[in-house]
């Protein structure tokens, strides 16, 4: 992981439960000392954009690299060095400006975390009447996505059973979350009520047609 910060602290707590070896590369010496005191010898002091520092950190043994600095160009260079010199399999990048996403993806850095998108997603979910929110994108062929949709009071599908609704062929209803929070496994006879949340598997790019279908 690059940078001793709140994100890495949370990740150390999580990964160490599963006995993973973790190394943090951090520029500030006092931060390294702080993390070493908290978690044992875990820090490599130095600049992660320096190949020698990556070597010293044991990058050749890394299965996953997580670059979460606030600079897109720093994250990109760190990732490119680790990939080309140490063949790191999985690289996770924090990306601040999503316009750069294509450049990251075309270099094989497919896992991009954008704080702004995550905030927007949470807002969408909280205000989700017929505005579907994305739950997960699946690496399938063709690409699929799991989305959540909250059913509006005046939706045409209210009162209809799932067999009557007949979901489009590119989609599959996975779960119904009732307005009281109880989860309900979909079955042909079950009916849709106002404010139900539907968790649906769809082909990527079919979100809009799904909204039309359920409105």
């Amino acid at each position, binding site marked *: 992981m690059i940078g001793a910060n709140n994100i890495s602290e949370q990740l150390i707590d999580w990964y160490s439960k599963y006995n993973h070896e973790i190394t943090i590369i951090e520029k500030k010496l006092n931060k390294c000392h702080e993390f070493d005191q908290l978690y044992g010898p875990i820090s490599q002091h130095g600049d992660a954009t320096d190949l020698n520092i990556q070597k010293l950190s044991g990058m050749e043994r890394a299965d996953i690299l997580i670059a979460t600095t606030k600079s897109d*160009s720093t994250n990109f*260079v760190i990732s490119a*060095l680790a990939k080309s010199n140490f063949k790191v399999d999985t690289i996770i990048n924090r990306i601040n400006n999503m316009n750069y996403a294509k450049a990251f993806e*075309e*270099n094989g850095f497919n896992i991009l975390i954008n704080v702004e998108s995550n905030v927007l997603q949470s807002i969408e979910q909280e205000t989700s009447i017929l505005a579907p929110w994305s739950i997960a994108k699946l690496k399938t062929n063709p690409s699929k996505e799991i989305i959540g949709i909250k059913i509006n009071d005046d939706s045409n599908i209210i009162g209809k059973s799932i067999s009557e609704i007949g979901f489009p062929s590119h989609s599959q209803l996975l779960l119904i979350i009732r307005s009281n929070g109880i989860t309900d496994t979909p079955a042909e006879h079950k009916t849709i009520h106002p404010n139900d949340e539907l968790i649906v598997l769809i082909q990527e790019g079919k979100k809009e047609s799904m909204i039309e279908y359920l409105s």
Partner: protein
Amino acid sequence: MNNSKQTTNQNNCIIFGNSDIGNFIIESLLNSNINYNITFLTEEQINTKFNNDINILFGNIYDPKILKNLDFSNTKLSICCSENTNLNILTASYMKSLKAENIFCCSYDTQYNNLLNSKNIITFNPWNIPNKLNSLWRT
């Protein structure tokens, strides 16, 4: 303007970032016997002797939006030569994703010299300009 200069619509160049090496390249291209049409992207107001011979686009060079509307398909040469090596590397890769060809990326650190080879982007150091680049003004 020298009328004997060769002019084609394929002589468009995009120079990204203000630096000594960028200024040197611009001047060399302008002094060559080819009529290059240079677009220069910079964050700072600059006042150079070739201000009237190039198109200057001011903007935030840390935001790729500045590049989005440029026509890379009709560009002969793109050079990232700000003073920030990391930014040059990311921007050169971003230009590639916009289908730019013949991209050069300036690095002030030799450890990155082969970093973008697989993407067909030539990384060079300001003290060692590759032949493929300086041949553009030495012909």
